[in-house]
């Protein structure tokens, strides 16, 4: 039955209406969780606020386990969902560049849009930076196009790559996440004790 649009159960004419509605829910959850504040977000790297880790890992587990159950009950054809292609080295390089951008800018693209929505100038400037960065990338593309397309492993899953069943992967993420929730709550308490102000 699922995914509904690729299986033709929902006509493609509804695509953009659904995109808008899902986007509204996405933006609402990000903002309501505190991701419109850069200082809230980067707290995950300094130990004073682990909200990013809590939201991110919880979301990951819920989505992973949910997909497995839908597939297990036969409601979802996992072979029909999009698997991000893996370009190993370019993706590691991209992640490293994004990581530095994250610690310097305090936002990632989705969260910066919610910051723009509530009137944060730093969110607006970050978004302008995103635009400029992608523009620079496209203009300079001939220089590193070969690298960009190198190491193509195709649309592989963790199961394809390591032979670990998806259910075990979800299990491992769950165990690691629960340990992280517990461990980081202790760190957060200790770090906050030494902070004179916590008001963003």
């Amino acid at each position, binding site marked *: 039955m699922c995914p509904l649009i*690729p299986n033709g159960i929902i006509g493609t004419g509804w695509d953009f209406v659904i995109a808008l509605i899902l986007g509204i829910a996405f933006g609402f959850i*990000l903002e309501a969780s505190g991701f419109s504040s850069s200082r809230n977000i980067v707290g995950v790297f300094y130990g004073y606020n682990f909200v990013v880790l*809590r939201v991110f890992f919880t979301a990951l587990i819920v989505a992973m386990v949910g997909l497995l159950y839908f597939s297990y009950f036969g409601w979802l054809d996992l072979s029909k969902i999009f698997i991000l292609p893996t370009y190993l080295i370019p993706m590691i390089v991209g992640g490293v560049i994004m990581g530095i951008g994250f610690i310097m800018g305090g936002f990632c693209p989705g969260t910066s849009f919610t910051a723009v929505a509530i009137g944060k100038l730093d969110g607006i400037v970050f978004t302008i*930076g995103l635009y400029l960065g992608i523009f620079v*990338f496209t203009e300079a593309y001939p220089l590193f*196009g070969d690298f960009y397309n190198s190491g193509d492993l195709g649309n592989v899953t963790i199961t394809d790559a390591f032979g670990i069943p998806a259910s075990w992967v979800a299990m491992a993420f769950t165990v690691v996440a629960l340990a992280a929730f517990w461990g980081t709550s202790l760190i957060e308490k200790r770090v906050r004790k030494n902070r004179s102000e*916590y*008001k963003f």
Partner: protein
Amino acid sequence: MNKHHSKNSEPKYINPYLGGVLLGLLVLVTVLITGRGLGASGAIKSTVVTTAHVFTPEQAKSNAYMNKFISDDHSPMYTWLVFETLGIFLGGLLSGIVFGRVKKLRTEHSPKITSKTRLIFALIGGMLFGIGSQFGRGCTSGAALSGTATFALGGAVVMFAIFGTGYAAAYFFRKLWI
């Protein structure tokens, strides 16, 4: 706005685990309906391609990266991610209104730095995130969250690379934040 003057009072945000469950259900519903996950950097890419196509159409078409996203039938803005991103903005605004956080333009920064410093770093950070998201085939939403949730190897690689680098580099940028 009602002002609580206790110095350590935190802003009113929803419980992070509730936020996580809601976000996870949203990723799940998105995959169940569309067969793919959520994204955010793709819409900016569409905007870059569109402006290039409008101002310098020949150059845009001859650019090996941009021409993949240019079609004769419709504008690059007529894509799923652009509408979804418009939604992110509206949803953020809605939440900001509900929780009383929509105010006039302001810059959030550590007391140790000026607004100007914050904005310069926000610009550089945004540029790096923009460049990195192209190599990563997506950003925190598309590659790291949606990618990993669908068990894609590349998603997990991007997730660990972003957060690992964040921790590795945090010390050098601590004055910006703490």
